[in-house]
């Protein structure tokens, strides 16, 4: 698995799934909510990201349901997805900490 910087849609998809399995439309609405409406995933972006994430072994299909004659497939985080999200969170936190300390230096 390559450790390049994670794209924002992927980051938010993993974040949405960290709370538990969700289907595609559930991920879209959840991502919009947790990002305060800043990240609005469209279907093409969502499924391209899910394709990449499942190829990388970070998410996997959980179960399927039929609701109103429509197929819903739920996705869940794999253990690898969990640790990848944790690593990305640590990276972002370290970046933010550096920036914050520099801003404090500049401000004092």
């Amino acid at each position: 698995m390559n450790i390049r910087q994670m794209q924002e849609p992927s980051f938010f998809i993993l974040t949405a799934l960290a709370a538990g399995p969700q289907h595609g439309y559930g991920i879209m609405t959840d991502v919009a909510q947790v990002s305060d409406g800043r990240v609005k995933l469209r279907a093409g972006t969502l499924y391209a990201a899910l394709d990449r994430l499942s190829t990388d072994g970070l998410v996997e299909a959980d179960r399927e349901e039929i609701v109103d004659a429509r197929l819903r497939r739920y996705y869940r985080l794999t253990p690898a997805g969990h640790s990848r999200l944790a690593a990305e969170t640590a990276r972002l936190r370290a970046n933010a900490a550096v920036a914050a300390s520099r801003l404090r230096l500049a401000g004092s």
Partner: protein
Amino acid sequence: MGAAGLEIRYRRLLRWYPAGHRALHQEEMLGVLMAGAGPGRNRPGPAESADLLLGAARIRLRPGRALSDGPGWRDALAVYSIAAPLLVLASTLISLIGWLAVGGSARTGLDELSVMPALVVSGHLAGTTPAWVAIGGQGLVACALTAVAYRTWRRSRSAAGGSDQSPT
């Protein structure tokens, strides 16, 4: 007609996805698209269409994924990368014209034309169409879309001006 028409148009866009991906995800994506479409919507928006086409391109370009069964997919992708923005531009123009004109009747012809690039590219993938025919085909489609747009605009303008020369 609204929801059924919308579903048909989404299915048309989903044809750009690789067969393996469609077999697994098409119905699921359709469910997401229909759930996300507001009430009364009868065609995908330009941004949503572009996003679906980009998603298809991204999935096809994924390293390690077999892009197609046949040779010549590189040419087809090149054609695709030209055709997709043109189609999106054309559909935006047509939507704008439709909005400026009376409404429903201003869209005649676009649905049939928008299938053509898919046919040409898949023909090329199957090895029956040389690249220049595929590329020329894209050009023709773009010209045809422009012509349809112009004709629609003329017709709606003359209808609005009261001197209706083209009975419909």
